[in-house]
C-alpha cells in the first residue's frame, strides 16, 4: 500500500483541501522543474529541507487560497503564492527560488483540491521517485537553514513551528 498524503481542509469559504506528498530520490527533477516553470503543472513543489512540519505549508497555502478569493494575491498563481507566503522576503523571485526546487532530489508536492478540480492523479504518476510517509519529513529538514530563512536565533525548539507560522501570516505588515 502506498503512503497516504498529508491532508488538510483549508478555509471553509474556499472549499479547498490541501494534499501534500513527499518524494525521495526523484530522478526527473529537471523535467518537473520545467513543467512547473512553463505552467503546465498545477501544483507547488517545495524543498523539504526548509519545512519542519506540513502544518507550515498548510498555513501558507491557506493564506494563498484566502488571498485568491479576496483578489489580493501578490503573485500570479495560487501555487506561486504558497511559495511566496512561505518565505519572509517580499522579493518574489527570491521566495520562489528559495522554497522551490533546484537540484535536490527530495521534494514535497502540494495540490489544492476543490470539488471540481483535482489534477493530482494526472501529475503524481509522472514523478519518478519513491513516495514516502510524511513522518520521514523530519529527517530531511535542515534546522540550520530553517533558522536562517526564518531568522530564528533565540527561539526554543518546541515553539519553533508556532513562531514560523505566526511570521508567515504577518509578513505583509511586520518586518522580521
Amino acid at each position, binding site marked *: 500500500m502506498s503512503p497516504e498524503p498529508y491532508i*488538510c*481542509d*483549508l*478555509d*471553509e*469559504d474556499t472549499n479547498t483541501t490541501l494534499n501534500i506528498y513527499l518524494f525521495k530520490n526523484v530522478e526527473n527533477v529537471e523535467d518537473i522543474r520545467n513543467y512547473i516553470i512553463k505552467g503546465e503543472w498545477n501544483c507547488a513543489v517545495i524543498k523539504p529541507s526548509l519545512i519542519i512540519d506540513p*502544518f507550515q505549508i*498548510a*498555513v501558507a497555502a*491557506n*493564506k494563498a487560497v*484566502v488571498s485568491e478569493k*479576496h483578489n*489580493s494575491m501578490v503573485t500570479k498563481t495560487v501555487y506561486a503564492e504558497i511559495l511566496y507566503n512561505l518565505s519572509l522576503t517580499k522579493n518574489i523571485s527570491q521566495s520562489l527560488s528559495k522554497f522551490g526546487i533546484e537540484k535536490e532530489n527530495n521534494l514535497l508536492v502540494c495540490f489544492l483540491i476543490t470539488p471540481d478540480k483535482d489534477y493530482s492523479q494526472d501529475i503524481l504518476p509522472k514523478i519518478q521517485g519513491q513516495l514516502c510517509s510524511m513522518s520521514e519529513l523530519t529527517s530531511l529538514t535542515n534546522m540550520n537553514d530553517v533558522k536562517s530563512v526564518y531568522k530564528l536565533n*533565540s*527561539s526554543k525548539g518546541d*515553539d519553533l*513551528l*508556532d*513562531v514560523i*507560522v*505566526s*511570521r508567515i*501570516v*504577518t509578513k505583509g*505588515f*511586520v518586518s*522580521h
Partner: protein
Amino acid sequence: MNDLKILKQGAEAKLYICKYLGKSTLIKERFQKRYRHPDLDKSITKERIRNEARSIVRCKTADVKTPALYLVDFQRRRIYMQHFEHSITVKDYIIQHATKNAEITQNLDEICKMIGITVRKLHENNIIHGDLTTSNMLLVPKNLNNETTEEKCLEKERFDLVMIDFGLSFIDSSTEDKGVDLYVLERALISTHNDYPDLFSKILDAYKNHSKNNIKEILSKFEEVRARGRKRTMVG
C-alpha cells in the same frame, strides 16, 4: 460557517471557537461600529488588527508567550489564533480558586512574579500592551496529560503565563508609556481584586528585579502618572 461556536461577545469583538486547519482555533472578529463613519471604522479596525497581530509576533522574540497566529484577515476583520482549551484567565483563577489558604497564597505569589517578569520583558522590547488587566492574561498548564487535571497543574506551578488582547498595543521606547502601562495594571487590580491589596506591589517587585535597565526613570514616571491619576480622582 459550520461548527463555529461563539465564545464571547465583547465591546469590540466577537470571539468564536472552531477547528481550523485541524487545530483548535479562536477567531477574534472585530465588528463594525455603527456610530463611526464606515471609512474611519474600517481604518481603525485595520489598525487594531495590525497592532494586535504585530505585537503577538514580536512577543515571541521577546520570550513572552502568546497564541500562535493562523491567519490575519483584514477583509473579514478577523484574527485566527491558537485557542488554549485548558486555560483560565488570571482574573478567574484569583476569583474562583483563591480562598485564603497557604498553598493558594504561595501560588498567587508565583503568578505575581510571572506577571512582573513578563511585563518587564514586554517593556524591555518596547512593547506597550495598552490594556494590562488580569482578563488579558491566561494561565496555561504545561504538558497537560490525562492524569493531571488543570487544577493539579496550577497547584504544582507547572503553567505558562500567556499574554493576549493586544489590540491597543503599540511600540514605544518612552518611559512615560511604560509608566502608564503599569498604572493601568494597578488600577485594574484595585478594581477587580480589591480583596487582594498586595498583588500589585508583588508584581512591581518582580518587574524591578528582573532588570535594572532604566528602572529608576520608569518608576518615577509611574509615580508621576499615579499622582496625576490621584488628583483626577479627587477632583472628579
